[in-house]
């Protein structure tokens, strides 16, 4: 996980929960329990959280504190989940959101 900070000059070694596995679309990804889903995705280098409804443009993390709602995804079947403030759990099913659905536009 190249985007993790192994040791920080001021904050030391980041305190993390246990390592868990979740799925991002069809892919298995590792992260730490309790961290925001968005942080785990970012650490894994996954940038695109959703495609917008009208213009089908990609979006990802923007504010990271639950305000802008750009980072929403389909999590465990529910759309519009703010991944930047939703804690990661073992086995979570995280999907790219297309408009308000987990199905790509051509299948909607």
């Amino acid at each position: 996980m190249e985007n993790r900070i192994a040791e920080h000059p001021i904050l030391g070694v980041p305190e993390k929960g246990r390592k868990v596995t979740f799925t991002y679309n069809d892919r298995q990804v590792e992260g730490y329990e309790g961290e925001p889903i968005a942080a785990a995705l970012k650490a894994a280098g996954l940038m695109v959280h959703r495609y917008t409804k009208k213009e089908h443009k990609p979006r990802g993390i923007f504010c990271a504190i639950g305000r802008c709602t750009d980072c929403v995804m389909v999590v465990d079947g529910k759309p519009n989940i703010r991944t930047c403030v939703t804690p990661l759990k073992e086995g979570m099913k995280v999907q790219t959101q297309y408009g308000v659905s987990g199905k790509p536009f051509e299948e909607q």
Partner: protein
Amino acid sequence: MKRYDLIIVGAGPSGLSAAVEAAKRGLKTVVFDENEKPGGQLFKQIHKFFGSKEHKAKIRGFVIGEQLLKEADEAGVEVVLNATVIGLYQDKEVVVRIGEAVHHYKGDAVIIATGASENMVTFEGWTLPGVIGAGAAQTMMNLHGVKPGNKVLMLGSGNVGLVVSFQLLQCGCEVVALVDAAPKVGGYGVHAAKVARTGVPFYLSHTIVKAEGEECVTGVTIAEVDSHFRFIPGTEKHFDVDTICLAVGLSPMSQLLKMAGCEMEDNPKRGGQVPVCDEYGRTSLAGVFVAGDVSGIEEASSAMIEGRMAGIAAAEYLGYMDKEEMDRNLADLDQALDGLRQGMFAPKNRGKDIETTDEGIPVSKNLLKHGFVADEEIERFPGVTHAKGIHPVMECTQNIPCNPCQDACPKHCIRIGSNITALPAVEEGSECVGCGMCVASCSGQAIFLVDETYEEGYASITIPYEFLPLPVVGEKGDALGRDGSRVCEAQIIGVKSIPAFDKTNLLTMKVPAEYAMRARFYKKG
């Protein structure tokens, strides 16, 4: 309905401070915060704060947060986290989402301390993944231990842009450029200087033309702008980046107050839509107070004082103290707040062109344009002197409210005086022992120990260093100038890290004597 004497919305610096003061006076106080952790933005602030002792100067933001929490706990404040206030209704009813339910509470007094939200700017491609707010970058790296990107361009040269750029460097990101449409650096010069000396180029009077990339950011083009902020054709510059970070100011998050029917005003000096309130946070609604950024954008240091003021005003409003006692308490806080609101960056000086310091010294134009004081400018400031043997060189060139260096020196070599914004000067006749306490205590990382006659033909320079990996004694590398370019070879002759330095390591490097007043950073070769 469950009732409290005082309900506070927001467990950031101002909310917690208000809670402490109120609870100490016997008010039954609860603080609701939507976040998982209390402290607001303090926990993302890993730099040392400015100010003086009473403002918790030279203490890192997140440590101040921990101290505040402990104080609140001792005072008997109830802090409820993961508690999202969804509305402030009539009769000071606060509705809070906690877990899977909503709860109704009433407060005889309510303090809104919801802080601020980030402003944004638009440019082609600004919605691409990889374009993020500076707050997002701080959250990712300082709270979650994840690098926001590898190659980052920062837009905004205010304190947030400067501080976050430095934090990005600290966690191992490359900052390819710091860009601002304004013609001058907006934040503290010392914050700019510590970024510039690592080699980050500053582009003032520039802004982003477009973010490039299909699925996410792969590059960015900037261009120079004229005095009307229009692009000047032919000045485009391209950078390969994976992240564009926006730090273009904050706006008060005052929606709850507007909803509650507080009289509001649009006040550009306070950052936007704010409640009309007096100096202690009393709004147009009886018993509803405000504190911190929600009533006007300032620093965490002032937010904490404002919080204390609002807590005291609420205690008086509810009869927990008489007016006389309140006035006495507030007078002290007034003074503390006034201290912070002095100097070149004081709210009253916003937007003004300041040509000289209070001491009558012309300000560094280069600092404002490029982020560092030019070699030919530095000698005119009182902290920069030459002496035999080791001595402090204080490259503090703007009047800002900060004085820890004065107290840090056990030998009283450094003088600021009673005026907290005065430039530090070397006390004549004092004797520096080279302990380095001043270097570590300077929140702006602007103090260096220089021994121009360290060895025949060589000088030693001690610099503050907050990066990993820490160089080791004996290793050789490059000494960088204030502008971040290589000036000469340097050899590390000392690495000092003691608890009193609070993670600011002191690196001593040996350079040819002629570079004693030019070399200000070290980069491994």
